[in-house]
């Protein structure tokens, strides 16, 4: 690895004896001494914290900012909030993707509206400059200012059913933060990402608390000025010490997100048209799925494309895997090659009982041995329940195409139930 970048928590990770590896040109913890399994289970049954400060943050501000984002993000900002499909407003955020003119994925993103013409775009590690450049290319108004502020932003996540109970110990006004904070909304602000409702940590640090995450479980993404991240990390570790809170590495993040049917950018979505995948909710489809409710960069290419490959989620029948990537492939039950493996990991919180997937979330004594799960890219569509076979040419692992994988996830649970 050539001069990997380090997050401000890097020293802490190394001091804790974490197994480190390169991710997005950052030297990041894969797991700590607790191990990936314990970290994965902590997020299902208690809480985990993740260093996500390698992710990139782009500010888009000024007259015309919203119009630019409406052109570039594939979600319709007029109709993207909640079941009522109301417009994006200050205090709400939305998941979407940025596409190239040919309909392929530049990166996925969460777009935060801070004020009328002030937005924060959170993208993947190393993608700040790329996304900022893409937005700049399409900006027609000289009043729109686009800045990659990645190195000025401290970001960490706290995820799991006890996330709010732990987080409230470090907030000055937890009641104010948690009141009317539905999934994909946020409170507070930090640094130059100011909002009309500031919130602070008990040490006086301004914080942005976002009810989002990348695990499928209840929790928050937290943003502070970069020099305040280590103090926040240490405060939360202390606040969660008696609740089973664990620091979690990228391995647990990967296994949790796969079980929650969430894509990894540049692996499950990438340089191919953003179609025929489980994440079509990120596109501005009209009700009849005949076209889009707005024009956006990449829309015409998606409507015209002859791309006919299908990204599908799967789960196995035991923990056994076939590594994703080159040299391994997918066959039908007759042994004919039908595609490739995008992601293959083990969700350690689940197992099968009479064929049905059960989670330790339902029963903490359930002896889950884990199931392999992930995504395949096939040259045909398969219905949930159909079986395909992952193979490396020697081993063959039969798996089931699934609409969903890990049951009883907590991400969308009402706040009052999680604080009770």
């Amino acid at each position, binding site marked *: 690895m050539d001069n990997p970048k380090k997050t401000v928590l890097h020293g802490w990770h190394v001091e804790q004896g974490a197994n480190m590896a390169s991710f997005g040109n950052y030297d990041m913890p894969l797991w700590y001494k607790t191990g990936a399994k314990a970290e994965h289970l902590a997020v299902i049954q208690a809480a985990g914290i993740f260093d996500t400060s390698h992710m990139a943050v782009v500010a888009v501000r000024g007259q015309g900012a919203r119009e630019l984002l409406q052109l570039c993000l594939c979600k319709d900002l007029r109709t993207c909030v909640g079941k009522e499909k109301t417009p994006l407003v200050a205090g709400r955020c939305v998941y979407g993707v940025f596409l190239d003119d040919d309909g392929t994925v530049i990166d996925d993103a969460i777009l935060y509206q801070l004020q009328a013409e002030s937005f924060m775009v959170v993208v993947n590690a190393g993608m700040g400059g790329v996304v900022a450049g893409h937005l700049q290319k399409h900006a027609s108004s000289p009043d729109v200012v686009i800045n990659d502020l990645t190195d000025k932003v401290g970001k960490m996540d706290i995820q799991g059913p006890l996330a709010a109970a732990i987080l409230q110990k470090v907030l000055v006004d937890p009641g104010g933060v948690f009141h009317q904070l539905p999934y994909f909304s946020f409170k507070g602000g930090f640094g130059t990402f100011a909002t009309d409702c500031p919130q602070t940590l008990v040490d006086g640090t301004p914080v942005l608390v976002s009810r989002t995450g990348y695990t499928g479980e209840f929790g928050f993404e937290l943003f502070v000025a970069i020099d305040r991240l280590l103090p926040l990390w240490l405060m939360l570790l202390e606040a969660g010490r008696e609740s089973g809170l664990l620091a979690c590495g990228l*391995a647990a993040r990967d296994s949790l997100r796969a079980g929650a049917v969430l894509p990894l950018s540049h692996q499950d979505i990438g340089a191919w048209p953003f179609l025929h995948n489980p994440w079509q909710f990120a596109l501005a489809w009209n009700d009849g799925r005949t076209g889009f409710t707005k024009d956006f960069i990449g829309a015409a290419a998606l409507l015209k494309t002859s791309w006919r490959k299908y990204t599908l989620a799967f789960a196995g029948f035991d*923990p056994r895997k076939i590594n994703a990537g080159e040299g391994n492939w997918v066959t039908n039950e007759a042994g004919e090659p039908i595609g490739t493996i995008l992601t293959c990991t083990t969700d*350690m919180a689940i197992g099968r009982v009479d064929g049905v997937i059960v989670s330790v979330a339902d029963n903490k004594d359930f002896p889950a041995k884990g199931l392999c799960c992930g995504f395949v890219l096939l040259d045909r569509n398969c219905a949930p329940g159909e079986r395909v076979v992952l193979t490396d040419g020697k081993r063959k692992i039969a798996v089931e195409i699934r609409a969903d994988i890990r049951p009883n996830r907590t991400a969308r649970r009402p706040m009052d139930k999680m604080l009770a």
Partner: protein
Amino acid sequence: MKELSELIFSEEVRYTEDHEWVTTSGATLKVGISDYAQDQLGDIVFVEMPEAGATFAKGDQFGTLESVKAVSELYLPIGGEIVAVNEALGDAPELINQDSYSNWIVEIKPADSSELDQLLTADAYRTLLKG
């Protein structure tokens, strides 16, 4: 991640460059993986083992280890017939993480014990890991 000084080595076994070990005395020999290998793999969640009675040549793949993240292949340090597999790993694959030397994976009746001479001593294996 364990530092080299924290890794456990056994003087009782010989090592391969692929991080397996094999015992050296008796009519049958036990095979497992090194402390370095289990530390690098992380939590082991499944061990795929051969059937007793199967025969392999030195260097043949005889099973796989599954961590949460990936699959790793296991290669035999010495050729011969598998006389036993460690059934305890079926229910508790994490035993390998807890102690990778007492929790062997297969027991083999060697076809040619002189193949042991081609394997690494603990010192040579330690030197290999130093890089």
